[in-house]
């Protein structure tokens, strides 16, 4: 396994882990549902995406050409993560119907 590949794998893993950490932290710190929704979505897409990419890269060199299948879950994550976030948002909206607000600067004020 060449050096540059090793470096790539390491960077991908670190970025992915950082993304997951930031996502989790955001989940804890952000104030309301709609903003909180952003955090795990990024964590899932970026975190899992980077980790899987690292996996694919490493096993390409270790096992040979058959490592493309590690990219299949990546595709699934890219398709499903936004959709599930979208559905969560819809569900929240269904419970909290939007009432016209006099202040346009605040899009949402529910706790």
């Amino acid at each position, binding site marked *: 396994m060449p050096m540059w590949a090793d470096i790539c794998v390491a960077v991908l893993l670190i970025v992915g882990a950082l993304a997951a950490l930031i996502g989790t932290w955001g989940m804890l710190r952000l104030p309301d549902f709609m903003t909180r929704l952003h955090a795990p979505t990024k964590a899932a897409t970026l975190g899992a995406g980077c980790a899987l990419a690292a996996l694919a890269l490493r096993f390409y060199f270790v096992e040979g050409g058959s490592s493309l299948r590690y990219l*299949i879950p990546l*595709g*699934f994550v890219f*398709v*499903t993560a*936004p*959709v599930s976030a*979208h*559905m969560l948002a*819809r569900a929240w909206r*269904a419970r909290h119907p939007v009432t016209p607000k006099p202040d346009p600067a605040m899009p949402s004020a529910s706790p």
Partner: protein
Amino acid sequence: MTLLTICLLPWCAALLLARLRSATAAFALAGACALVVLGLLGQMAQAVWAGQTLQSSVAWLPALGVSATLRIDALAWLFATLVSGIGALVILYARYYMDGDERLPRFFALLCAFMGAMLGVVLAGDLVLLAMFWELTSLASFLLIAFNAPDRGAVRGARAALAVTGMGGLALMAAVVMLGRAAGSFDLATVLAAGDVVRADPRYPWILTCFLLAVFSKSAQFPFQFWLARAMAAPTPVSAYLHSATLVKAGIFLLLRFYPVLGGTDAWFFAVSTAGAITLLLGGVAAVFQHDLKGLLAYSTVSHLGLITLLIGFSTPTAIVAAVFHVINHATFKASLFMAAGIVDHECGTRDLRNVNGMWRYMPLTGSLAIVAAAAMAGVPLLNGFLSKEMFFGEALALEGHDPIALLAPLAALLAGAAGVAYSARFVHDVFFNGAPINLPRTPHEPPLWMAAPVAVLVLLCLLVGLIPTPIIGAPLAAAAHAALGGSLPSYSLALWHGFNGPLAMSALALVSGVGIYAVLMRKRALHQRPLPDPWGYRQFERLLLTLARSGVVLVRQLRGDRMRLQMAVLALAAVLAAGWPLLGGGFEAHLPELTAAIPQGGIIVWVVGAVFAIAATSARNQPVTVLLFLGAVGLAVALAFAGLSAPDLSLTQLFVEVATVLLLLLALQRLPVEAPPVRSLGKRLRYAAIAVAGGGGTGWLAWEAMLRKPPAISDYQLANAVSGAGGTNAVNVIIVDFRGFDTLGEITVLAAAALIVWAFLARERAGVLGRFQGSFMLPTAVKIVMPFAALVAVHLYLRGHNLPGGGFVAGLLLAIGLVLEALALGSWRSPHARPVRWLAAGLGLALLTGAASLALGYPFLTSAFGHPVLPVLGEIPLASAALFDLGVLAVVVGATVMLILAFAFGREEGKK
């Protein structure tokens, strides 16, 4: 071969009939079936009368010594001829009785099935086969009695009949098992020859008790007589059949059949003759006071069955001859009487004896036929009933020993004879004379000629047997009695005139006093004012049913859903006790956990994560959805742990089961109360905690102990033979689809049945649409993109299953989860691919066909074959026929899972919105 045809033909006809629409075609088919059976029996007549026993046998369960043997001797021949002969007449009669009824094909189908069951009972040459056909007669008669189903009387009558005869069926099964053990074989011929051994066996009293319970319940002997009177709610052709030749005679047949084995002891004498005598008197007296024409006949049947039972109880050779003779006579006159009653009912629109009077003016032909039949029933000379009743009186007088029954028997016989004359007199006088009809719904007239024809045939038989008994009935009677006795035939005479003797005097006395009793009772129509006698037995039966139902309600109230915690605690505690009980005996050395073994570090982390989630779940106990998510996380941790412990198959399965479970429970939560009241008392919480720790800890410890044992030889065998025996390297999959394929077939069948039950219960008012997701665009689109890939992964898992982790079960679960998500996303249970019933049917069908294919190739059921053909492009392909079976498993798992989850998703709740 002929025997097999006789036995199977009615069933084939029944299957065909159930599909027919046209009444005429159904009549032709049913009639042809009965006539063919009759003809085949006729062919055998000479051989059978000469004392031969014909037999044909197919191995059925050779390991248990059970074979599908059919056997016919003169006794079986006689009963089979009665069943098919009277069956043919009943079919002709029903064609006109139920003219214009669109249910006629169904009626004939049930009638043919019933005939098949009866023929099976009579011809069975193996005890187990006999018990099976016996059960079938109970079921078929249940369906026939309940034919007018929404009608309350029909439903109640059928229920009583099924409960009583079903209980008898269980008793017969017990008797058969014990009898088979005692005699050393289930083969009827062997058992019949082993009478001395059986009677000397210590189990004899139990065998006799169970056997008599079965026989008495079927033949409506005291105290089970009530169901027969209730069974008259059936259409009249059915009554004519049930009461004369079939159902109730099955019990008599069994008594006669097993008389050489079980009979002849004191216990037999007392039990059988006491039950017979009580039934004889009870039925006779009750019949006189009925106001329903069919009720009168029903109780007269009870009485006559008592008479036959009493004769068999007497246990003398001549009494057995008389019993066989009376079986024939009773069948002929009772069938014709029921048919005549049906004609009266049909023409008058009612069969209440208080309204139906003076019919002689309207239907002299039916009248004269009915009068002759009733006279036969009363025992008037020159008719068949006279001859057998004469023999009965003779037996009662000749009884020796057995005080005080020997003294009481003639008295009881005389009393019953008088009662028989009285109700026969009432049948004739009240219906055809006794003034004019009162308030009839319609004006009666003669029935169509073909409807009266069966009655005429039977009445002619009564007359012929009565006038010239020996040429008509002598040979079959002698042969049948010989077969029933299992030995030598006593000397008896069928002559009309024996000189002035005791029996003749009793006959005369019974005739005179019977007519006298009726005349006194009917003076100024006083009998019409009398209330119905209490139908003893039925009220007690209803009360018993009510008590059972109430105790069930009490039990359910103690354990049902709103006491969930209690319910779970009881279950867990029971499991702990059941598992711990054997350990209390000792002789067991415990292995303390040794963590020094090579456990991967990652494994420990996974376990800690799982444990944390489990504890978190208990702290969030009032928010079901949160608890559920935590539990899902625990399940994933377990799946990871399995993967770490080199159990990839388990890991895969656990993963998908976990996903499916969370999905199912999330949907089920819609229907449950959102919040459970918290447990406040510390004592209770500690108690629940103790139970939880005992359950979880105990299970873990048991698993630990099991894993530390040396694996028993069977798993070594399976590992060693997976490749050579089944061509697969995944031993788990090989065990499921090949080594233990038959188990799997049973399991998927149960799975399919359970799913269908849930589907039927929950989805009664299935709503088409799950409203909340309506209008979403992204979800359905995403599903359309992802679904093909999910299906692809499932196919991949399935294909590699025989050699690598995977297989039909896992692949089925994955596909099912995909299909459920698709259905949820589309918001409709009518999603294009989730057709659970079809999946189930296809899967079960495929699994069965795979099994049957090996049968067709001459191997045992479910034998699998494998090979490694080399194909031009794809190279060497491992192929096993078990893979097809696995495909069946896959389809059943898909169907069942989809069905279970969707039943929760689109249930009644949504239907209301």
